[in-house]
């Protein structure tokens, strides 16, 4: 996949008194990066490949600019507002475990990693007994493994915000599950952004390797302490070996003034199964790029998404499922619930080249508009050159039907509760798929409380 980036400086935006263009602004973000932390340097060799990786990404970013709506990939999502804020690397903040209680999962009591503004927080993390060979920890704990074969090796690494993350990241959550190993408890990665005197910039990074025949459940939660502004630019890479299975939940609950840019890139070897449930609730502006590459035959991808937004929030999901071999399948349901003046975007790309015969792909985009000023842009994008495939897609945009509300009212349920129940029912199809009870209940409660 290639991303077209305009090199022409866009119309000037203002930070304070200074005029600034999109390219210059990106360099100010790059300038906030820290050095490779000493903790990741263990022997000369490791230092070299990490440094090379960062340097290469840095060179890429220097040539790029913050994308504008003139670019197809950003047509519906305007990043101009981003340029109004000077995001900086925040000072270290003390976070206590009690601050995070609302987001902890009892099911992951002994399998949790916490990162604060992208920096590993060992005292907030809890890793208990794990099967032999399993690594759940920060980058230095995993340097014995051939990480250089995986880190930043997925297609799309040159995309502007992914490259910015690679150029800037320090700590990295590593989950390594060896051959034929199955993890009972879900791995919970909690990425906390802090807010304070400055608008914090952070680049959370995560690398998951599920070796052949292994199985794990992964939960990523992005949250904000406080209500202030911050920019979170997260990248997660997931590698599934042959016949491996990964069940992934990605929950974005950043503050309503935050900007959240996220990338999930997945590579699937033959016979592997990847499921992702991605839920976007927070941030004034969020973008999730979900890119799955089926590298082998008979792989299965299931993507379920839910964006539930109000006020003036913008939530954008761009997904890509790239088939490359025969007998692949994908099942995708993306739902948006949009109220007030909020704006949801969904672009679902499915690529089926000639080599991917007998592909079975199904995509559904369902959208619920709850106010006349709410807006939805949904765009299925199927590029099929194979001739013996089954690819179905559909998109619906609807409102709460008077008849549905009336049916519930005629059973004694008041109008407000009836509307809430119908919104909940709409979201339940996605949330109900979450296998982790505490998370499913927690999200159900949030959805039930949504002002319809």
């Amino acid at each position, binding site marked *: 996949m290639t991303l077209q980036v305009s090199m022409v400086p866009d119309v000037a935006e203002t930070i304070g008194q200074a005029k600034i263009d999109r390219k210059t602004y990106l360099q100010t973000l790059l300038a906030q990066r820290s050095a490779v932390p000493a903790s990741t340097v263990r022997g000369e060799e490791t230092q070299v490949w990490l440094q090379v990786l960062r340097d290469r990404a840095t060179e890429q970013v220097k040539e790029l600019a913050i994308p504008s709506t003139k670019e197809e990939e950003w047509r519906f999502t305007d990043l101009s507002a981003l340029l109004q804020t000077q995001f900086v690397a925040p000072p270290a903040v003390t976070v206590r475990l009690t601050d995070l209680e609302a987001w902890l999962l009892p099911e992951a009591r002994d399998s949790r990693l916490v990162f604060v503004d992208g920096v590993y927080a060992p005292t907030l993390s809890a890793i208990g007994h794990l099967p032999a060979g399993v690594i759940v920890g920060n980058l230095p704990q995993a340097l014995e493994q051939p990480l250089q074969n995986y880190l930043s090796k997925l297609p799309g690494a040159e995309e502007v915000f992914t490259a910015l993350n690679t150029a800037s990241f320090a700590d990295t959550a590593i989950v390594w599950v060896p051959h034929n190993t199955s993890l009972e408890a879900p791995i919970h990665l909690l990425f906390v952004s802090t807010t304070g005197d400055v608008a914090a910039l952070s680049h959370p990074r995560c690398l998951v390797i599920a070796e052949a025949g292994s199985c794990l459940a992964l939960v990523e939660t992005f949250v904000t302490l406080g209500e202030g502004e911050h920019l979170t630019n997260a990248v997660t890479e997931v590698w599934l070996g042959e016949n491996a299975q990964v069940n992934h939940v990605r929950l974005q609950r950043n503050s309503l003034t935050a900007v959240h840019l996220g990338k999930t890139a997945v590579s699937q070897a033959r016979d592997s199964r990847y499921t992702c449930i991605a839920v976007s609730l927070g941030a004034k502006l969020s973008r999730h790029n979900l890119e799955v590459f089926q590298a082998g035959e008979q792989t299965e991808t299931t993507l379920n998404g839910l964006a539930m937004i109000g006020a003036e929030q913008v939530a954008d999901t761009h997904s890509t499922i790239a088939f490359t071999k025969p007998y692949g399948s994908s099942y995708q349901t993306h739902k948006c619930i949009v109220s007030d003046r909020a704006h949801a975007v969904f672009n679902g790309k499915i690529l089926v080249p000639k080599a991917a015969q007998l592909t079975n792909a199904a995509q559904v985009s369902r959208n619920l508009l709850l106010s006349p000023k709410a807006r939805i842009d949904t765009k299925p994008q199927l590029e099929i050159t194979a001739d013996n495939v089954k690819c179905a897609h559909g998109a619906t945009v609807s409102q709460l039907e*008077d*008849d*549905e509300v*009336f*049916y*519930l*009212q*005629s*059973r*004694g*349920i*008041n*109008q407000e*509760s*009836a509307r809430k*129940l*119908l919104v*909940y*029912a*709409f*979201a*339940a*199809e996605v949330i*109900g798929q979450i296998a982790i009870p505490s998370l499913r209940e927690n999200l159900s409660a949030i959805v039930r409380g949504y002002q319809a």
Partner: protein
Amino acid sequence: MISENSEVILSVRDLTAEVEGTPILKGLNLEVKAGEIHAIMGPNGSGKSTFSKVLAGHPAYRVTGGTVLFRGQNLLEWEPDERAKSGVFLAFQYPLEIPGVSNLDFLRVAYNSKRQHEGLEELDAFDFDDLVQQKLDVVKMNPAFLSRSVNEGFSGGEKKRNEILQMALLEPKLGILDETDSGLDIDALRIVAGGVNQLSHANNAIVLITHYQRLLDYIVPDYVHVMEAGRIITTGGKELALELESRGYDWVREEEAAEVAR
């Protein structure tokens, strides 16, 4: 069962109503007392279903004149949910599917709304489960239906049975059944009719809206009304339904025309 001294449950006087500016009800009169079963028959488009929706308070139907008293109170002032909680129940001709909401949860929420309205304590999940198990017998419903989403993937007959199950739980003062018999095979019709007969007693009233006389073989009405062009044009006993079945609605129209001419 007709009894002169029974409470008047529903009193409709000169009711007129429109939908999207088109008048549908044009001066409807009806009085229903406790213990009675009324059947409202009539050709398609005569306003039968509109009447049922007006009584239940559907927002698309606008009342333009007349009065509707429910147990002496102005029914038209109340929101649909208040009507339901006060004892008006409409069994829908086309019950809606609500994916994502389990039938059991839906029934419990509805039941507890009514309990709350009556100043009673809400039933918890366990007690409610016991109650609903008893009520399932009324419509011979498989308990497996409780864990499925409301009406989702139900057959026509199963949806109608689910409506009667809701009526059994909510124990309305006035049950309005809007073409509950339409589209049912004979076995399903027997079950639904048997359920309604079990639920009918001296303190409540049933209004059956139907297109077919067949239903009245299983639920015997005290009164049969014929609707035409938004009004009730004739009323009789159960034998009127048989007459309609053999002679058709044109016969009633001619009778009425003759009466007007006289």
